[in-house]
């Protein structure tokens, strides 16, 4: 019987659970884990969905359970919380950097990418507000001519 892990330890473990659709960032980078509390023997993890129809949401809950169980945590309850609604403001600084390095332009309050994640040019144009997943828009770089994903600001 191992010692009961504290909340900080659980947060750290959750920081290693990748987002199923963008595995370069974790569920904590994404800002969708809203709370972790101990509840008797178990733990309650509060998660908020990114987009209401995002199919990754169910997978994320399962991945969190699997990851914590592998660390010896039992009695894991995943609580879904809708309000306040998820916002891209909750992406962590390191999460934004990881997106950029991966080739996805991070969200920007200006409503479009700051630069092309491939070549760094600021000459970019929107192709479509809807992209390969609900959270992304399709953009194109006018300098290197490559299309790229932009993480929508919501």
């Amino acid at each position: 019987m191992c010692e009961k892990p504290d909340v900080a330890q659980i947060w750290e473990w959750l920081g290693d659970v990748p987002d199923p659709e963008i595995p370069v960032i974790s569920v904590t980078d994404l800002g969708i884990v809203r709370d972790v509390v101990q509840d008797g023997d178990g733990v309650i993890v509060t998660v908020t969905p990114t987009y209401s129809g995002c199919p990754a949401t169910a997978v994320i809950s399962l991945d969190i359970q699997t990851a914590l169980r592998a660390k010896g945590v039992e009695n894991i309850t995943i609580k879904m919380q809708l309000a306040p609604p998820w916002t891209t403001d909750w992406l962590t600084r390191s999460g934004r950097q990881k997106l950029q390095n991966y080739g996805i332009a991070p969200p920007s309050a200006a409503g479009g990418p700051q630069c092309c994640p491939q070549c760094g040019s600021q000459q970019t144009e929107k192709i479509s507000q809807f992209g390969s997943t609900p959270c992304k828009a399709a953009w194109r770089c006018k300098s290197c001519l490559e299309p790229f994903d932009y993480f929508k600001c919501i």
Partner: protein
Amino acid sequence: MDQNDALFRFLLRMGDSTLILGHRVSEWCGRGPMLEEDIAMANIALDLIGQTQLWLGLAAEVENKGRSADDLAYLRDAFDFHNLLLVERPNQDFAHTLMRQFLFDAWHKGMLIGLADSSDVRVSAIAQKSLKEVSYHLDRSRDLVIRLGDGTAESHKRMQDALDILWPYTGEMFVGDGVEASLSGIVPDPATLRFEWDQTLRAAFEQGNLVIPEDDFAHLGGKSGRHSEHLGFLLAEMQFLQRAYPGARW
């Protein structure tokens, strides 16, 4: 009307409208006129069906008879659906699909802004969540209605035809009944949404050279379960699996 019954009915109106429109839009999947639009429509359908899970999930909770959101979606017949007539209109061409979307999105956004202020925190939470997604839907449908309305002679004609045909199905969105009247403070009076909707339309149609029909005749009935023949065909396809293999699971 008992307030709990009224809330159940209202939640069906929301959830059934997003479900039926989500299904209609999903019919374009793999058939869009261009790749970007195909992807946009699949994404919008996904948002709408996601919102349906929330609305019908809450409806099931409010009803408290052991039914789930899936039971409500797949095991009711047409006369128990309370969606707007507008959303069951067939897709026809791209212009028609787009005009239907714009007329709906402009109403949907106003409705969600109203519901975000609901005194029922569950309703308000769903509305706040949906509102972010629907703002993107409206940006796209408005942009395309303007571009195609003000595009070629052919695209203009198709957009105007779509507006003429769909117009009589819009009035229903603003006609309230005992359901809304019993839910004061929880849901907005539908009539109050018309002004803002009208402004959104007029601004877009002015840029897109489109003319709103003069006749304000409105078909009614969808919100109380009286539907056009189109809904039955849609349900036959959407509900096929659960009807043929009751209780089948993914």
